[in-house]
């Protein structure tokens, strides 16, 4: 995908001046409420007309004020998944799903509906009325509806923020699987860095109607979360669960890890905060923590008031955050050996 945007929009008390060029198929727009994310989305989809500028998608001009071009939303092939799904309430799930597909010329239908329905696991919902769906099911159907319209780009407008807790993360594997399987470029709009990290590779950071930064998502996570006071969340994909009585053992790549037992022992994605990790120069002799991982320091970097330490744990990457004094005392430098220690209860299951 190649998306080139350079637009201006004046709302009186708020001005948007958005300019960027994106190549990655997995992009995000990150920023607080009122930073212009939704205005950008509306301008891309043709739901809001910019005052000036240009929008081009894969070389096709969607908007160009000087040339007098402004394609209507139905001609842009830019799909939108809304925050609250907005399934048409007077239609069944099936009719909602096929609404866009039926409006696309046969020759341009490049998505197999059966394959998509299977990937989203919504086959059993087809004959239901929309009112009887749960929040997660709604979002899956809304995503299916948008994809079946065969768009060249999908805009996801905070699709998870209407869902609570675990449900939010449960839908992420569906999203990832579908976008990978059907290779559709997307722009994921969110104010949650966690979601952004799980869905995107590159991010536009918006603030006050401007694009402040365009950075790899991982880089944004390392710098901004550190300064946010909450620490960086390591995302660990843990497999091969094994019941050890009061503990569960998992494998993180080649590394064995111990976690406290929970109701759901299945493999999945877990979060581990960088500030819950202790670093030791030598292997500690006796400790209550269940996980002690010999690592090699890859690099260190400064966050606002802490130091981030990137560790190599048998090929896996782990980020710990420590105060600058510890850095000197433990002589933490690239290439040095160190032991990372964390408790079996430090993990948070994401999905």
């Amino acid at each position, binding site marked *: 995908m190649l998306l080139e945007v350079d637009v201006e929009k004046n709302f009186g008390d708020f001005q948007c001046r958005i300019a960027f060029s994106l190549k990655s198929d997995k992009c995000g727009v990150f920023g607080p409420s009122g930073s212009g994310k939704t205005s950008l989305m509306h301008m891309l*989809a*043709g*739901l809001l007309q910019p005052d000036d500028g240009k929008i081009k998608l894969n070389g096709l001009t969607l908007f160009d004020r000087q040339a007098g071009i402004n394609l*209507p*939303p*139905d001609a*842009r*092939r*830019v*799909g*939108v998944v*809304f925050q*609250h799904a*907005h399934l*048409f*309430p*007077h239609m069944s799930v099936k009719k909602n799903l096929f*609404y*866009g597909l039926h*409006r*696309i010329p046969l020759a341009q239908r490049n998505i197999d509906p059966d394959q998509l329905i299977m990937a989203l696991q919504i086959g059993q919902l087809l004959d239901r009325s929309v009112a009887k769906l749960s929040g997660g099911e709604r979002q899956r159907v809304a995503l299916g*509806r*948008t994809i079946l*319209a065969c768009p060249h780009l999908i805009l996801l407008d905070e699709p998870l923020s209407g869902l609570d807790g675990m449900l939010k993360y449960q839908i992420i594997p569906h999203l990832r699987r579908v976008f990978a399987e059907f290779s559709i470029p997307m722009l994921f709009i969110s104010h949650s860095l966690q979601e952004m990290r799980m869905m995107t590779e590159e991010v536009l950071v918006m603030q006050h109607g401007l694009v402040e930064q365009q950075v790899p998502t991982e880089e944004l996570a390392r710098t901004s979360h550190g300064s946010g006071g909450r620490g960086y969340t390591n995302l660990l994909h843990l497999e091969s669960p094994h019941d050890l009585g009061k503990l569960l053992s998992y494998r993180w790549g080649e590394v064995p890890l111990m976690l406290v037992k929970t109701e759901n022992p299945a493999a999945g994605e877990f979060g581990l905060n960088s500030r819950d990790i202790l670093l030791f120069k030598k292997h500690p002799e006796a400790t209550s923590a269940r996980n002690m991982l010999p690592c090699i320091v890859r690099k260190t970097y400064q966050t606002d008031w802490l130091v981030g330490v990137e560790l190599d744990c048998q090929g896996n990457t782990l980020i710990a955050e420590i105060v600058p004094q510890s850095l000197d005392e433990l002589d933490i430098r690239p290439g040095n050996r160190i032991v990372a220690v964390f408790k079996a209860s430090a993990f948070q299951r994401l999905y």
Partner: protein
Amino acid sequence: MVSLSPADLQAINLSLQVAVTATILALPAGFGVAYLLALTDIRGKAMLEGIVNLPLVLPPVVTGYLLLLLFGRHGWLGHLLGLFDIRIIFTLRGAVIASAVVGFPLLVRSIRIGLEGIDRQYIQASRTLGAKWWDTLFTITIPLCSRAILAGTTLMFARSLGEFGATIVLAGNMPGVTQTIPLAIYQYTSTPGGDSMALSLCLVSILLSFVVLLIGEGANRRLARR
């Protein structure tokens, strides 16, 4: 016992004809105006709204008189229609126009409230899914405000059945030609000994209005269940 003369039956027939025609004619225009007021950012909205609502606040006789000036032989619309040999005043067409104009604000008001209640993101979703504006209108907008359209239509129909003031000025009170139920009742009440005949037609009028509202409510419930 209700006894109805052939003239009464004719009046009932004419009333139904006028109400049905006025409602059918006003519906597309009413929807169009409500759409402009609710979903677009056109200039002069306040002006348009004022004009549409005028018949609601003016005495119907005044509305009738203004229509008479407009459609009379020297009125500009009357003159224009005269070129095609179409007469409005003192014809059934006049009764239809009078009913349509007086009931119009009720229709527009109901539909407008319905349209304003539609979450715009449904319309936006439809457009981004590849539907052109008219496609969205028929598959999303109209179905989502169908209950409001029904309510407006019912109200307008019932109002048309009872229209008196504007009709008598524009269409006159000619039995068998323009005499609807209210005009017939008026004539009976001003004729010595016509009281029982007036009462019979009153009962018919009540019954008709009641049936219309009942049908409207039934249809409304069906739509709500959908």
